[in-house]
């Protein structure tokens, strides 16, 4: 009994070994055949990695904003298109929200603008965020040196600013930026009152330290705010109040903006959490689509294997006849051709895994996504490829096994 089992196992090993030997005798043809499958596996793996990498990158960007956050942004185009009055977000909105809301802990208006920053002839182009002290509390951004400008400085329209780590390094080198002066947009000389602690890069590769904070009022005196605030950022008292805060803010602003019942608002309240969920849904669809494409290329690869195995059976008809005549059973002949298909598939899958990982790594680097190596993606691709190899290898193998040995022996 155990002897029979050992022999059966030995035979299985021999099956794969002889299959590999056969394939090695036609290296060119074998290589071309597995190419399709390798591309399929590579596509599968790299696409799964793309999808996952893109998803994580987008998620990380939103997560870096904080999740206990509501953002009010202008949304005027819709109303303007219908000739309905629309008004930008302004100081009145912030004041009203501060006075009337019962669910908000922090309210911070933000105006964003890219500006030139200059000190002693050195220029640095960065993103200016004009806001109030609530902004750093809302984002939990600690300061490395000095402090955030205060409400009094906002009220006085003081010419002060807080630098991110990147402009601090670019303009001051190893010197102390505190108390130093930087010229913004060639017109405002601001005194540096604080430097933010470094936050590094986002998953998307953005420099999170390349920014400058200044009082929103100071900004308005020099550049005005014809389009209003870029956004108003809000923090609910508790994360659980997110939905309540959202409806309250919507209600207050709609009343303030005199939006009639049933009309489109000229602002929009969103939370990063919703965006993250939406992105997750979209990327699930996208990843599914990519998987589908990869599955199709695997199927095409499988058809390639079936094709070459049919050719092989036709070419080796006489050999099959000889094997049958000397006593190979139909099952053994079937198994031999299945092993050959499987060996082709294994080689193709292995090549595809390497290729796919390489493509995924290069793409991730180029797109500045995190490198995601999905073990499940690899396993899925390989298992699917093997299944494809077996399914498509079966028809040629069955044809070989069904050959009449007498006819096959006569075949030239």
């Amino acid at each position, binding site marked *: 009994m155990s002897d029979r089992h050992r022999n*059966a196992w030995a035979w299985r090993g021999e099956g794969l070994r002889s299959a590999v030997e056969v394939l090695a005798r036609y290296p060119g043809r074998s290589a071309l055949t597995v190419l399709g499958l390798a591309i399929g596996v590579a596509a599968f793996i790299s696409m799964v990695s793309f999808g996952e990498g893109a998803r994580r990158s987008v998620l990380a960007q939103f997560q870096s904003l904080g999740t206990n956050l509501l953002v009010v942004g202008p949304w005027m185009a819709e109303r303007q298109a219908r000739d309905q009055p629309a008004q930008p977000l302004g100081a009145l909105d912030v004041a009203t929200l501060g006075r009337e809301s019962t669910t908000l802990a922090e309210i911070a208006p933000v105006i964003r603008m890219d500006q030139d920053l200059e000190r002693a002839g050195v220029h640095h182009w960065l993103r200016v965020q004009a806001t109030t002290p609530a902004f750093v509390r809302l984002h939990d951004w600690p300061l490395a040196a000095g402090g955030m400008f205060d409400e009094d400085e906002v009220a006085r329209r003081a010419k002060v600013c807080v630098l991110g780590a990147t402009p601090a390094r670019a303009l001051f080198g190893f010197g102390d930026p505190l108390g130093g002066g930087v010229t913004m947009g060639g017109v405002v000389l601001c005194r540096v009152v604080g430097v933010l602690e470094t936050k590094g890069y986002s998953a998307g590769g953005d420099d999170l330290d390349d920014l400058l904070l200044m009082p929103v009022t100071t900004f308005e005196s020099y550049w005005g705010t014809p389009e209003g605030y870029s956004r108003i950022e809000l923090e609910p008292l508790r994360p659980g109040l997110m939905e309540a805060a959202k409806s309250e803010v919507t209600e207050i602003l709609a009343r303030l903006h005199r939006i009639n019942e049933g009309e489109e608002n000229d602002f929009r309240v969103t939370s990063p959490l919703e965006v993250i969920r939406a992105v997750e849904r979209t990327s699930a669809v996208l990843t599914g689509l990519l998987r589908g494409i990869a599955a199709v290329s695997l199927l095409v690869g499988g058809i390639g294997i079936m094709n070459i195995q049919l050719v092989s059976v036709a070419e080796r008809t006489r050999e099959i006849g000889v094997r049958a005549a*000397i006593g190979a*059973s*139909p*099952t053994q002949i079937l198994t031999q051709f299945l092993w050959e298909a499987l060996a082709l598939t294994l080689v193709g899958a292995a090549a595809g895994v390497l290729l796919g990982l390489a493509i995924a790594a290069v793409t991730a680097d180029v797109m500045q996504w995190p490198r995601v190596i999905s073990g499940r993606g690899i396993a899925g691709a390989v298992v699917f490829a093997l299944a494809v190899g077996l399914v498509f290898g079966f028809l040629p193998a069955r044809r070989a096994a069904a050959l009449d*040995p007498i006819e096959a*022996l006569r075949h030239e």
Partner: protein
Amino acid sequence: MAPGSTLEPASPRGARPLVIDARGLRKSYWLGKSAVEVLAGVNLTVGAGEVVALRGPSGSGKSTLLNVLGCLDRPSGGRYLLDGCDVSALSRAAQAWVRLHMIGFVFQSFNLIARATALENVALPLFYAGVARPAREAVARDLLARVGLADRARHLPAQLSGGQCQRVAIARALSVHPKLVLADEPTGALDSRSGGEVLELLLDLQRREGLTLIIVTHDAAVAARTDRQVHLLDGRIVDPEVRAA
């Protein structure tokens, strides 16, 4: 009375068990709507250790009879006992088992696997019998030595002469200790000298191993070296010439 139907004398081989005991073997094919009867009731008994020459003009049914005797084909009628077992109506898988364990084939055109070495060719039936590689290579090496090709084990068929190829084929046929060896024109593709050598080798191995051997041949000189000649004509055995072993 049909010639050859009941004229099989049992006496010379009476003491020996029968390896082949075929009664009324028929085989017909359909060509369009008409049936062509290739074997029209063949009776043949061959005792263990006997050497029989199967002769007859082409179209007489030699190949078909050989296919039936070799379990490559099933008779349409009649009964075929191989070593006492009825193998007339076996499944394909069972036929393969019988070929593997009980029958050795030697073909006119050698039919070696071109991509396999002499050693691998000889070991191939053992591979299908599930013998592990070291054991079957040892057996194959021994057999190659006995057919005088010990130094050609790693050669491919293309690197061997016709006579050497047929020796490899003979070694392959013997690798699983068959009850019956069927040789179809074993010297037909060889020149007379190597053909003679191959025949001597085959007969020598037959004597040493006590093989039961059926040789299909046109060559009277080959037939003359056998114990008995069986002539086939139009699917029937005619005028059996009996020679005592």
